[in-house]
């Protein structure tokens, strides 16, 4: 019997060892970003393998870099192995999960793979503005409820079959299925008859009409500025993915995840799990067959630097620290491009706590925290302080009328006094017998270690007791936040394609305690028109209001350094689509 006990013990020991190993790994992702949220975001990004290393020579400062491409200083240093590879472009990617059907994948990295294999009707440029792709143009009715897409005439899937409006209709329909579990939220677009289809009351979605093979019309019930991107998403072949489709049963599609057929620039040749994904140029691509015959995503879990350095990999994204910049520049044969992420980091405030009703306390917490030192100092320039919920890369970004909340302990003290928090005998402020104790939650990372160290000092200087707690595991952190026993918690948004995604959580319905009628009104207005100039005005007002009555402590925009081998010409990675949009235009010298 003893041995049985022993073996059970060993099983437990083995699993606990795996747990701890897990824990130590969780701390890798950089800054205050939430790793899983980013990994699960739907849109295609380049991988961000955060790195830390040391190096000596300083040439350029990260803060001095513009958004342009910094050309390689000495392309002759190119390693032999890269020179020999004249028909293959190798990019790095964090291991995807292997489900390459768009709308159905569960990991953001599958989204990167899908963005090479599939093509959407519309896409976004580097400022987040919508531009045509498979659709030559689109029309939106006066009441902004009806969309009409005109497809390019020569569209074909990689198997040579034509891509028509029927395929678009099928894609939009299948997303309404009651058992659909992917990340595309089609119901936010309010297509007419969508709910009836989901509930099984109709056999088709009434609002989707195929007018002719190149034209599709979609009627919606409500104006929504994010609908154009959703409706104009990646297209699935009806003949291939819809062959066995019956309402309510989507299991069959799993069998097709590993054998994708799309209209993107490349087609999948081979997937070696844990190693690489090989693609060949798609001769049916509507912009013409890409010039580079072979493309490879090399999947790396850890450090990509060694592969870039030896020339085994042509492209990778690094967190934009000074160390990384120095190291990459020293190699000489890399072109570099600095990009600010479209996401933002924030410290959420628990509005269920009654004392946060007073915005002066919230403002005091922002004034009293030296965000610049933490964000820009500790991250070595790979992040900048955020004051509004949209990225500087977005068309909606503005600094007009925005209070930057520069660190000001005196101002914070005044605000606290005004809010009725008076200093007690032990130096901690109190109000109505309650001490001002702030419980802060975050994941365990280098960035949050720094924040905690500085925040503790900052806040005790203005009479606030700061009690931090860190979690090695992201889901555990979320569960704790859901439990409601906290004041502040650090998070990061996933990639934000439309500015609405950055503010949708601040409505009275979603914000769990935060309520500002003006904000509610402006958020609604922000998506109730498709005119980008009008939206700009609305968002400016909204950001000013959120700046004055902060729902969160807006924290940081992180920056990535894209590095690629200088023999690759024409590559222009952007913060919204990574390398996907410029990939078909590249060539090798």
């Amino acid at each position, binding site marked *: 019997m003893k041995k049985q006990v022993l073996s059970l013990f060993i099983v437990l020991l083995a699993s606990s060892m795996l747990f701890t190993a*897990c824990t130590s790994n969780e701390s890798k992702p950089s800054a205050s970003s939430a790793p899983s949220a980013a990994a699960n975001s739907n849109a295609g990004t380049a991988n961000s393998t955060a790195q830390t290393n040391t190096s000596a020579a300083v040439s350029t400062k990260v803060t001095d870099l513009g958004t342009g491409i910094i050309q390689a200083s000495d392309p002759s240093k190119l390693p032999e192995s890269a020179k020999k590879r004249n028909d293959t472009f190798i990019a790095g990617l964090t291991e995807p999960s292997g489900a390459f059907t768009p709308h159905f994948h569960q990991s953001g990295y599958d989204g990167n793979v899908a963005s090479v294999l599939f093509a959407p009707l519309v896409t976004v440029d580097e400022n987040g503005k919508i531009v045509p792709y498979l659709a030559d143009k689109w029309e939106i009715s006066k009441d902004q409820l009806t969309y009409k897409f005109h497809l390019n005439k020569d569209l074909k899937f990689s198997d040579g079959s034509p891509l028509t409006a029927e395929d678009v209709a099928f894609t939009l329909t299948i997303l309404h299925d009651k058992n659909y579990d992917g990340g595309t939220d089609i119901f936010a677009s309010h297509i007419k008859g969508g709910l009836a289809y989901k509930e099984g009351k109709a056999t088709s979605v009434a609002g989707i009409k195929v007018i002719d093979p190149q034209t599709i019309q979609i009627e919606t019930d409500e104006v929504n500025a994010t609908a154009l991107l959703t409706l104009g998403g990646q297209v699935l072949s009806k003949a291939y993915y819809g062959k066995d489709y019956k309402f309510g049963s989507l299991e069959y599609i799993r069998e097709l995840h590993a054998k994708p057929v799309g209209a993107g620039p490349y087609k999948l040749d081979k997937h070696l799990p844990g190693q690489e994904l090989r693609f060949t140029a798609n001769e049916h691509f509507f912009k013409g067959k890409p010039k580079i015959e072979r493309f490879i995503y090399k999947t790396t879990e850890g450090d990509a630097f060694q592969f870039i350095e030896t020339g*085994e990999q042509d492209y990778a994204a690094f967190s934009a620290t000074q160390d990384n910049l120095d190291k990459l520049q020293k190699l000489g044969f890399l072109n570099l491009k600095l990009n600010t992420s479209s996401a933002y980091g924030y410290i959420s405030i628990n509005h269920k706590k009654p004392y946060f009703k007073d915005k002066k306390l919230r403002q005091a917490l922002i004034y009293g925290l030296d965000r610049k030192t933490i964000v820009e100092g500790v991250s070595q320039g790979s992040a900048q302080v955020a004051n509004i919920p949209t990225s500087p890369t977005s068309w909606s970004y503005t600094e007009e009328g925005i209070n930057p909340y520069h660190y000001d302990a005196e101002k914070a003290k005044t605000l606290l006094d005004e809010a009725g928090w008076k200093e007690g005998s032990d130096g901690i402020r109190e109000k109505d017998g309650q001490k001002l104790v702030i419980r802060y939650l975050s994941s365990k990372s280098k960035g949050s270690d720094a924040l905690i160290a500085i925040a503790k000092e900052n806040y005790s200087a203005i009479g606030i007791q700061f009690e931090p707690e860190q979690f090695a595991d992201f889901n555990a952190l979320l569960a704790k936040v859901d439990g409601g026993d906290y004041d502040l918690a650090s998070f990061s948004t996933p990639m934000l394609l439309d500015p609405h995604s950055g503010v949708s959580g601040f409505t009275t319905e979603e914000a769990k305690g935060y309520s500002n009628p003006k904000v509610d009104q402006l958020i609604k207005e922000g998506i109730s028109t498709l005119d980008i100039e009008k939206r700009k005005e609305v968002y400016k007002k909204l950001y000013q209001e959120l700046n004055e009555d902060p729902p969160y402590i807006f924290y940081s925009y992180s920056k990535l350094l894209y590095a690629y081998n200088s023999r690759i010409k024409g590559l222009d990675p952007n913060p919204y689509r990574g390398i996907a949009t410029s990939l078909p235009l590249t060539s090798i010298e």
Partner: protein
Amino acid sequence: MSTYVIRRIIYMLLTLLGASMLIFFLYALTPGDYVDNNMNMTEQRKAELREIYGFNKPLVERYTAWLGNVLEGDFGYSLQHQKPIMTLFNHYIWNSFLLAAASTFLTWFIAVVAGVLCAYKSHSIFDKSVTIFIFAAMSIPSFFIGLFFIKLFAVDAGILPPGGMITTGSNAEGWAYIIEVAEHMILPVLIVTLLGTGSLTRYFRSHMLEAMKQDYVRTARAKGLKERIVLYRHALRNAMLPAITLIGFELPTLFGGSIVIEKIFNWPGIGQLYMQSFTMRDYPLLMGFTMLIAILTVIGTFISDLLYRLADPRVRL
């Protein structure tokens, strides 16, 4: 003997049942589930997904459903990968096995030889220098020495590949493929061996010292047998007995993968897969993998018990 085996097998099944229950509840009760990963999802959509995946059912019902499927040989689909668990294992586990088998073999081989020599020449300069080297090697963290060796051999010297299992984009087949994989194995195997040999060498050294003090070794020497035969046939065989227990424990390590080494060397093993699935709370995959380790552990101990019987007549029933 056969009743013993049958009794042991019944115990094993009970142990596994208990382990599966424990592991299932442990995972299910860990805060946060698969749906929580996406922060941008509305509460309503989360509830819908929990319904689709069955997370809203009572724990016991979820467990029995899972157990029922497993008894029918169906470990289910990974939520994240959308593939059957067994297909996923098949993709990754053999890569881990390759690495582990090579390094385990080397570790044991070196440890036995070094252990015996150290015991035979105990407290000599050789023994001391081996001990110092071993402790030095054991105390270096694997990620440090891993990265250091990559820098040294792959980046600066350029004689070994910096990671992965094959050169990216390589189409090598047959012998060329085997040589390529072997080249990529050198660094990771070297490091695992370097770190693992130490404790085993000490283990064999002390058991060997013990055995050499026994009467039967003195008798063998008195018979005039050659020293080599005394050492390897009489002393070593007895010193090896407790090691049989260790062999059983090696079985799960062979298939379990190494998270750190696989990450540093970008080796496509199962350790990485497990890591991801834990952060994502991919329950079917987590359960499948942990149960696999549990099964291997139980089988490992069983085999070592049987081997012990074969090797040592004193414990035979």
